[in-house]
């Protein structure tokens, strides 16, 4: 095709209201074909409603949704070439595994041989070829998850929608499934739209992430960009632990924080002198005490708490004006004497100025 539509999904100015409540507010998104795209946000941020509008279970109050260039906002779910993996898996208990996977192909009245072949291939893909004749209630949580995935993928949808599909699994299995899902996605090349509230999951799997808050998209970009360069307080706070220190812009290179100290920081072009800003510093970018290097900015504070996390120790430091910084002391050979940090002790924290992010 000369004029190939490159985007699997285009969302234009979509708003969804339930009575007085606006669940999704003027969202615009373009998701290219083959992308692993995540909608990330806390519960109630509109991510699931957005997904359900893509599936056809909700009709947008305003705006347009294009699927492979075709408007679909009024097309019912059973006529859309998208499939969904539900949070509860929603497997059919009266059918065996193969029956579940064949359900979609049977609705499309595919020939019997083709159905058998495709079901077998799909079960092979998710590693459940030997469980074809089992009932779902005989499977473990992880296996049910795979059946749900196979049942959706077998239809070769142009987009696969996943609604917190790993939410019910324990941590270890979740990690393993994250890797597997990503592998499967690469293998089949189908566009995945993945809804999650777990920022680590989104960072680990996605090509791009849209962070949602209050029905709007707060920031959209690749994981590295979202993590390293959050554009707002919400994103900085939602992704990872974030230290926020309030201050006032003094000149093009300095912010004066509440304790009166002046910190050099990269001031964005749209911040003027006298603007109130938040400085965000990731805990892992903070050096403690004798780790502080010459070209770092540093502050002194009092230790308020210490949490031992195994690979690291998390230290909360009060700066004296109500703001706090969290630093991580890695449990490397250097930290063999990590007991030396007790609450109440004075400590110096430092970081490279370029690692602080100034947020309006």
């Amino acid at each position, binding site marked *: 095709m000369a004029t190939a539509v490159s985007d699997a999904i285009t969302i234009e100015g979509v708003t969804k209201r339930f009575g007085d409540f606006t669940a999704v507010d003027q969202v615009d998104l373009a998701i290219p074909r083959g992308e692993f795209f995540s909608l990330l946000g806390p519960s109630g941020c509109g991510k699931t409603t957005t997904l359900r509008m893509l599936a056809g279970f909700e009709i947008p109050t305003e705006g347009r949704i294009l699927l492979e260039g075709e408007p679909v906002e009024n097309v*019912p779910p059973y006529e859309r070439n998208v499939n969904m993996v539900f949070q509860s898996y929603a497997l059919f208990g009266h059918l065996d595994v193969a029956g579940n996977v064949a*359900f979609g192909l049977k609705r499309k009245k595919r020939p019997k041989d083709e159905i058998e072949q495709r079901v077998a291939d799909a079960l092979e893909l998710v590693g459940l070829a030997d469980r074809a004749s089992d009932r779902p209630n005989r499977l473990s949580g992880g296996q049910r998850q795979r059946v749900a995935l196979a049942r959706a993928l077998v239809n070769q949808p142009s987009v696969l929608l996943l609604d917190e599909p790993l939410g019910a699994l324990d941590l270890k299995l979740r990690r393993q499934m994250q890797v597997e899902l990503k592998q499967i996605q690469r293998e089949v090349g189908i566009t995945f739209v993945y809804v999650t509230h777990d920022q680590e999951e989104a960072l680990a799997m996605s090509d791009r992430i849209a962070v949602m808050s209050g029905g709007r998209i707060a920031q959209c970009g690749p994981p590295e960009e979202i993590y390293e360069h959050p554009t707002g307080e919400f994103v900085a706070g939602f992704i990872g632990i974030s230290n926020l220190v309030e201050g006032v812009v003094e000149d093009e290179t300095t912010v004066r924080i509440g304790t009166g100290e002046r910190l050099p920081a990269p001031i964005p072009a749209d911040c003027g002198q006298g603007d109130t800003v938040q400085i965000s510093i990731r805990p892992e970018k903070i050096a403690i005490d004798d780790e502080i290097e010459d070209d770092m900015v540093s502050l002194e504070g009092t230790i308020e708490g210490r949490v031992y996390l195994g690979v690291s120790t998390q230290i909360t430091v009060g700066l004296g004006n109500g703001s706090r910084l969290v630093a991580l002391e890695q449990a490397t050979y250097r930290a063999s004497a990590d007991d030396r940090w007790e609450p109440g002790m004075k400590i110096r924290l430092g970081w490279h100025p370029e690692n602080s992010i100034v947020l309006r």
Partner: protein
Amino acid sequence: MAFDRPRFLRLYSFFVYAFLFLPIAVVVLFSFNSVKSLQSFQGFSLQWYEEFLNDSTLRESLFVSLEIAVITMIVSTILGTALAIGLVRARTRWSPAANVLMLIPLVTPEIVAGISALIIFSQLGVQLSFWTIVIAHITFSISYVTIVVRGRLASMGDEIEQAAMDLGATRFGAVRLVLFPELWPAVVAAGLLVFALSFDDFVISFFTTGEDVQPLPVRIWSAIRFGVSPTINAIGTLMMAVSITAVIAAVLIPRMFGRKESGIKVLTGQEGG
């Protein structure tokens, strides 16, 4: 001496079960008595069963009761299931009120339900007959079906229907291909429960029975006024057998079709999601 809790509980359970089942055991035992005594058991015989089967009015009453129970079961299962689906899935602003109203027939004293039915039939000028009994039975049965089926529906959630639609089934197809197959153990259990309730109902039948053949419980009541015969024991035993059969069927039918959950679990709310 230490307070021996397990032994105490065992003794206590024994008396509870004895209290529950002894009267029934006595009825069953004396239904096989060879003499007309209700006090002493003389020997085994089937004469009271014979007497019951040879009594054409009693036999007719048995068949009438079975017919009423079967019709009630079929009609109230269909209506009650439809109502349950509507109540759980429609979620309009009226559904909370409708859900509460649903419970009222269960807590209404049967005698009130019976008298109300009688008043309505007479005000409408409907002659009391076989069909007035059936209508009255269906009325009280729908609630039971709805409550059992609604519990199952609520525990299933609505994602499986959405999954079916997502996979290409229309709304009606989702109900036919997924919702109903998932729901039917509860529907069967509810139907058999209603069958048992209708089969041995006395109070409502009493108020709605007319010139037609009386259902068995009403017939027994009339018979007892002229003295208690051991035939009553035989009828009681047979009625119990019918009810127990209904309950066993509620357990076994879903199992025979490879469903893990049995009707008993559905009825007692022990089902898993």
